């Protein structure tokens, strides 16, 4: 699975577009708190659903107001078509859903049906985590990972348990996780959390992540 956002990045009633290995994805959260990741394309006219809006537990397309809700199978099913209020929406008006899991204070999306397995180190022994921030850079995931590995947060070292998608930094007083999202278009994001709830520490981690981001951006866009 690939992380697409901190959990705090998509509040109840909010939606955003993102990209998972080149696939445009809309991530949205119903008022019931459940988060969904769907193909970012309305089956009616192809409009991006991430331009739409959330009402209750449905995502509505901004173009013609077709509303889609999660069906039992997970895919988005058309609930209503405003231009034809008496019509039963056609069964094929569905939006493919991607497997979605919330863990480690992040939203994870599977890239294939049934992919609900988190990367190996995506665990902190059950400790609660606290959001730091996400950063997005104009370089592929491998370069972002290398930049983080080369410059761990002050007072921490990269842990041996780190894997491709999830970097773990351990220090005497902190444990920081940076989960990497490759977008498939030459850009990538890192979603950073920590087990340390202290505000000064998290603000320092914010500055650290932004420093790595700005360094990478300056290399690519001098």
């Amino acid at each position, binding site marked *: 699975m690939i992380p697409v*956002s*901190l959990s*705090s*990045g998509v*509040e109840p*009633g*909010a939606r*955003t*577009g*993102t*990209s998972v290995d080149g696939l445009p994805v809309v991530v949205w959260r119903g008022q019931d708190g459940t988060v969904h990741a769907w193909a970012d394309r309305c089956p009616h006219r192809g409009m991006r659903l991430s*331009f*739409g*809006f959330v009402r209750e537990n449905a995502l*509505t397309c*901004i173009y013609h107001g077709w509303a889609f809700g999660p069906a039992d199978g997970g895919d988005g099913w058309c609930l209503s078509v405003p231009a034809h209020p008496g019509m039963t929406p056609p069964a094929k008006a569905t939006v493919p859903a991607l497997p979605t899991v919330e863990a480690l204070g992040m939203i994870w999306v599977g890239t294939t049906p049934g992919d609900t397995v988190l990367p190996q180190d995506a665990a902190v022994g059950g400790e609660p985590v606290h959001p730091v*921030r*996400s950063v*997005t850079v104009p370089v592929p995931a491998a370069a972002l990972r290398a930049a983080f590995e080369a410059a761990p947060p002050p007072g921490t070292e990269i842990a041996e348990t780190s894997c491709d998608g999830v970097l773990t930094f351990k220090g005497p007083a902190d444990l920081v996780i940076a989960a990497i999202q490759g977008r498939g278009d030459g850009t990538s*994001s890192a979603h950073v959390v920590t087990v340390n709830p202290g*505000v000064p520490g*998290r*603000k320092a981690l*914010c500055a650290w992540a*932004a420093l790595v981001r700005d360094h990478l951006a300056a290399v690519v*866009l001098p």
Partner: protein
Amino acid sequence: MILYDNDLDADAYPVRLLLSVLALPCDRVIIDSSPLALRGHGPRGPVLEDDGTRAVGAAAVLRHLAAQYAPNWLPPSGDSLLSALTSPRFAPRQARLLALFTAEGPPLGLVEEAAHRLQDLDDHLTLGEFDGCPWFAGERPTITDLAAFGPAALSNDYGVEHDAFPALRRWIRRVRALPGFVPMPGVPQYC
């Protein structure tokens, strides 16, 4: 009180927002403030006439309205950010105008600079949220938030989305939830 502006003019949008949020009665005169009508002299932005006072440009009008009618909407500690946001040279504004009014659109470098300015806003809000400050100038909304809203919410007009700016997205939802919020073309009523 008379406001000279245009619904399509994003420079005047923060003024329309403030008038609506404060529920201030104001007559409006629609003027053609597009760059085409002004023949390259650049838009002068909204003009407000209020009881013998004449304020020209969004920043001046916002400052006048807040000082006269709602001092709690003035930023508590200076408003250099307000000046930057309402400057004719603010990259998100320039990029959007070139996207809307020229065939070739904004140069790539300008779009990148505009994205960097949005990144600056996102960074500011990201740090502020840790300190319990969900607005640009602290714990409550000010005219700086209204001046920032248009450039942030209209960035799709030149192809910059909010995917990379989570704190900006949260703040946009806060502004939209203000009682009296009004949309403008490019800012949907729903969302």
